[in-house]
């Protein structure tokens, strides 16, 4: 399944930010990547601000941070879009960048989603910032069902990045009042394949649900990463066969290989 792993050029690239804007509570950054290959949805990049990456809380950030790409737009040259949620010093620093600022980018890394079989219907299920890797994937699928869950109306605007999403919010301010997995339960059957990304409890619910109903599911997981290319062994995720490096064997994992998502 080599198309799932588009190889990364063997060097960080210094890319210029061409667009930076808020999407609800999230921040969208677009960087021109003229030399980079077109990534497979689900793959990720290691990002760092080219200047002043550090000196935040506890002198951090210092290591690069992992981000799924949102979309890879090809016009005259390729533009990579990222969507960030500022949760700590690394994401905070990236969120303050604007057009003209530069970032170091390594990637695409890891393996992306693999396409449904012709007879399968794709159901995309994203929660919070976990909707990111699904955006590019939606565009490559025929008539997918897209289900997105958000905390509240502040975060729900990320749904505008999708073609035809159904939305749930925890507080009911937008769409279904409840969990996105409520919507998912009603959508899956023996002919669906689920593509999911979101917070661990959501992914665990998806895994359990799909496991029970014997529906194939590809889960894009997250974990702390230092390198992104298999060098540090820091991104271990427990599978039924022991630990694997998520940056190398994932971030998209077949749900059946996992005993649980933590």
């Amino acid at each position: 399944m080599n198309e799932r792993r588009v190889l990364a050029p063997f060097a960080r690239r210094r890319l210029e930010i061409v667009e930076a804007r808020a999407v609800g509570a999230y921040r969208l950054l677009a960087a021109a990547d003229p030399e980079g290959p077109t990534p497979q949805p689900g793959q990720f990049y290691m990002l760092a601000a080219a200047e002043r990456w550090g000196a935040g809380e506890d002198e951090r950030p210092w290591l690069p941070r992992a981000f799924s790409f949102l979309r890879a737009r090809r016009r005259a040259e390729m533009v990579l879009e990222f969507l960030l949620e500022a949760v700590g010093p690394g994401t905070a620093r990236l969120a303050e960048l604007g057009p003209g600022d530069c970032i170091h980018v390594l990637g695409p890394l890891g393996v992306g989603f693999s396409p449904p079989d012709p007879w399968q219907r794709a159901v995309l299920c994203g929660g919070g910032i976990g909707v990111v890797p699904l955006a590019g994937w939606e565009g490559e699928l025929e008539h997918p069902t897209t289900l997105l869950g958000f905390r509240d109306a502040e975060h729900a605007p990320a749904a505008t990045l999708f073609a035809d999403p159904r939305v749930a919010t925890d507080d009911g301010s937008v769409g279904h009042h409840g969990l996105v997995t409520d919507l998912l339960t009603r959508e899956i059957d023996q002919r669906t394949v689920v593509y999911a990304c979101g917070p661990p409890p959501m992914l665990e619910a998806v895994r359990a649900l799909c496991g029970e109903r014997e529906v194939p599911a590809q889960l894009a997981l997250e974990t702390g990463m230092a390198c992104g290319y298999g060098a540090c062994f820091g991104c271990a995720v427990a599978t039924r066969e022991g630990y694997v490096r998520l940056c190398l064997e994932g971030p998209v994992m077949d749900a059946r290989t996992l005993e649980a998502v933590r």
Partner: protein
Amino acid sequence: MIEFCGIPLAHPIVNGSGTFDAIAARRAFGDELLEHFPFAAFVSKTVTVAPRGGNPPPRLWEAPAGLINSIGLPNKGLDGYLAQDLPQLAELPVPLVVNVMGFTREEVAALVDAFAGRPEVAALELNVSCPNVETGLIMGADRTETARLLERVRPLTAKPLIVKLTPNTTDVGAVAAAAQSAGADAVSLVNTLRGTALHPRGDGTPWLGGRTGGVSGPAIRAVALAQVAEVAARTSLPIVGMGGVQSGRHARDLLQAGATLVGVGTESFRDPLAGARIAGELASLASARTREIAANRA
């Protein structure tokens, strides 16, 4: 071209064991890795006799100007390494150094013995930062332990034996001297400094799955430089100096403090080509210095 224990090398920059996985990198970057291989020799991650899964996650904590890791030496074990990794590592365009660790002297002996006859292997590095389960002492923190280990394994191979010293010791110079007397060909240092971090939620539980870990990166550079200088003053062995190297200047400092080679570890996580960049910077610094000295003489 330089020489280290009889091994010709293109430049003095190698990787620190466990901080670059050439097999994984080839999967991520393809054959471009081989065309631009960043290190003059490749040091593979610690191999133990039995396979190890490693420590439970989380395994990483970002510290000020550094990293705490508690990886726990996951590896396929000796048999898995010989069968699966060695053939792939033999394809690298640079000499291979195999790093091994045992929990008893006999385990180390078994590992050394297994690689002694392998032409793919240019040298062996002994990771002695773990406790001897028989004595409870960290092998590399105690000079008697270190000497006895070397005495046991030295006769088993003609290949260069590099002892990777631990910095968590009172007198690293004494340990290095003991290693030299007992037949080591070189030493490498520093390994990581013992350190830990608590969970940010504030309930006092350790963050790392392995509870404590090892600190690497710029935070330990000053300690590494001091220890390399101490070892250089106490032994005549070639030294692989490492700890927090991020630039040619840092590499030069270690060489001036007495190292023959310089290892790049954590910086590769930030920049996979760090080794090549640092080798280039080092070469420019060296030629700038040569010009300067020549100018001063003229």
